């Protein structure tokens, strides 16, 4: 059995740390883990994707289309862009706040994110929408978005990692001065 989680967003949103936290939780359970990251030019505001897979035996670090148990999207359009990776009946956790690319701002495009959320609602069996503005306001920092999204996925049961296991990974992997902030974000999502 392999659990596959695809994280997607825009360069700079913190997908890499999020994938490391899932990997750490799975390693802690004695599972074999593979991940693949986007590093390089695309980190400058481009689309980034992290693949995280764990189980007894994992051949490829890259998730095939139709192979993801859960997609954690840091941005609505990126969820739609990667939706073909979702398994039938898989779960999507999406942050509802769009990142408007400069090309859209220049071209006067009307991209607002709402059309993407509607598309996701119509085409995803199980959709969990997170409100990053509210999370960041409640927790007092924009940096907790990644951990909060992970917590939503953990709570849904689709991630194969429990909320407590995620908490332990945060305590083990994140610098101590950020512990309180991140635990607060997890608890907010777990309410």
């Amino acid at each position, binding site marked *: 059995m392999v659990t596959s989680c695809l994280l997607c967003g*825009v*360069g700079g949103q913190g997908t890499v740390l999020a994938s490391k936290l899932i*990997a*750490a939780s799975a*390693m802690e359970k004695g599972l*074999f*883990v*593979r*991940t*693949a*990251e*986007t*590093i*390089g*030019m*695309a*980190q*400058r*505001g*481009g*689309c980034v994707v992290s693949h995280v897979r764990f189980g007894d035996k994992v*051949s*490829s*670090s*890259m*998730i*095939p*289309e*139709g*192979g993801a148990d859960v997609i954690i999207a840091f941005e609505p*359009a990126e969820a*739609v*862009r990667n*939706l*073909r990776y*979702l398994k*039938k009946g898989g779960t999507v956790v999406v942050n509802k706040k769009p990142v*408007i*690319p*400069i*090309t*859209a*701002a*220049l071209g*006067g*495009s009307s*991209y607002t994110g709402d*059309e*993407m959320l509607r*598309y996701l609602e*119509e*085409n995803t069996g199980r959709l969990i929408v997170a409100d990053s503005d509210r999370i960041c306001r409640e927790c007092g920092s*924009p940096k907790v978005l990644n951990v909060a999204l992970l917590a939503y996925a953990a709570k849904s049961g689709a991630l194969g990692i429990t909320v407590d296991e995620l908490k332990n990974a945060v305590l083990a992997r994140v610098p101590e001065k950020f512990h309180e902030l991140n635990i607060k974000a997890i608890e907010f999502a777990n309410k």
Partner: protein
Amino acid sequence: MSKKFLMGNEAIAHAAKNSGVNFVSGYPGTPSSEILETCAKIKNENMYVEWSVNEKAALEAAAGASYSGGRSMVTMKQVGLNVASDPLMSLAYVGVKGGMIVVSADDPGPISSQTEQDTRTFAEFAKLPVFDPASPEEAYEMVGEAYRLSEEYSTPVILRPTTRVCHGCASVEVSDVPEKHIPEGFVKDSKRWVIFPKLSYENHKKIEKRNTELSEVFSDSRFNSLTGSGRLGICAGGVSRAYMHEALDILGNPEVKILEVGTPFPFPERLAFEFLSGLDEVLVLEELDPVLEKALTYVCGKYHLNVRIRGKLSGDTANAGENTVNSVCGYISKLTGASVPEAENLPESPTLPVRPPVLCAGCPHRASFYAVKQAMKGKKAVFCGDIGCYTLGNAAPLDMVDTCLCMGADITVAQGIKRIEPETVCFSFIGDSTFFASGITGVVNAVYNQTDIVIIILDNSTTAMTGQQPHPGTGKTMMGEISEKISIEKTLEAIGVKSVEICSPFDMENAKAAVLRAAEASDGVRAVIFRAPCIAVSKPTGKLRVNESACIGCGKCIREIGCPAVAMKDKKAYIEPSLCTGCGLCAGLCPVNAIGGAD
């Protein structure tokens, strides 16, 4: 042994340390950079680690360490191997004493590169053995074997990971006890270390003999394997091996005979013959060049085997870009007739926003490009760009990169254009790290040949694109030591550049004036150094905010500079506070002064 979760690049670094590496050099380049950075992080008292000025310097220094009996590793990306190819081709003839690994990371796609060249082809060209890992854990294993082989045959050995191996992470079994290798020191032997035509002739014969022997050795290597059965075959190399295993699972494991190749050159011919015997058709799965496909076709011809080889050359697989589990599924399905499970049919999605990579909010390059663009408005000018973050200056609305070829070529390409178009002002844009890596020779060429060009040096005090590595101008080395900063302006002056101006690109009026002076001087080489640190190595100066009642919604702040922090919201400009660094570029061009400091 202990289990560590490592990125492929980290696994290579750990393996080098555990193999007793004494000397590690390299030049940053995606996807290879983290190998050397990890070496620096985990180094012990027997290891020296440096970012060299470029790949040629790195490879030559590593060769010297290896001549002296030290175990060395030199790291670069595939286009870096082109820079290092002069010493590499000769070193293949001279050979080494201490084990030496040349890591050249390939980038199928390409994801962050200029070319889709294949280091396996380069290895064959250089007549050097090459290892091609499928995963981080295999890369770890291959490093140890490569050092053993390198010392047994006194030859440099190439390790060729690809992006998905370099930037993939896996649980890797790592030794906790690094081997300690004490180098013998340099032993004078001019018949061995001085390359002459006669030596090259003698060594050429030895190399060919050795490679025939290595082909035999590799036929029994644990990095090559023959499994399965039937009349249909699949031969796979690199990360495509992982895709193949996953695809076979998805397709319900149809009957096939499988040859996995981890040592593509010298090609394991005996093993390949055994594989091909009794087969009707073979599908070859590999990325970049059809290296395995050609080798199998050769074996078929040599032994008169009637086997159909399907791959890139036959048009059965894609000849450019990456493989994926899905593409490999399709190929295997076509070979075996096994059907691919039907994918869920999603309705057409709303138009997705495109996200080309852009210069960061607050990036000083944006201000530099804007200053030159403004200063040259309406004048005939060509802007020659180079490799680095500033290649992104080509995007709208800046549109300030007319050419980009390879490291250092901005300065020399501009000279050629100037000789054909004397009336045009020819600009070269080069970053600080690229200047040291391969820009200086071009400046000497321009001064010597008295070619009128304007060099704009974008000095952001770091090697930004590859992740903020130090370079000769930063005053820091990879051993964490402070070194004398090498001054770009003094270097230019010493070469004979008559006019060198330095200013901050954010001081827009001064910046434009400096560019104009340089453009109008037209007497040999002129340079303007725009100096402001990369936002990744400096603290933001504050955050700007739009005064909504003053903003007239003209959009000039967006249209002119294309900063990702600025967008329109309800017909007014809006500055995203999480991105703004307070650089002030947008505030300076607002016609109604609606942008100011946030309270």
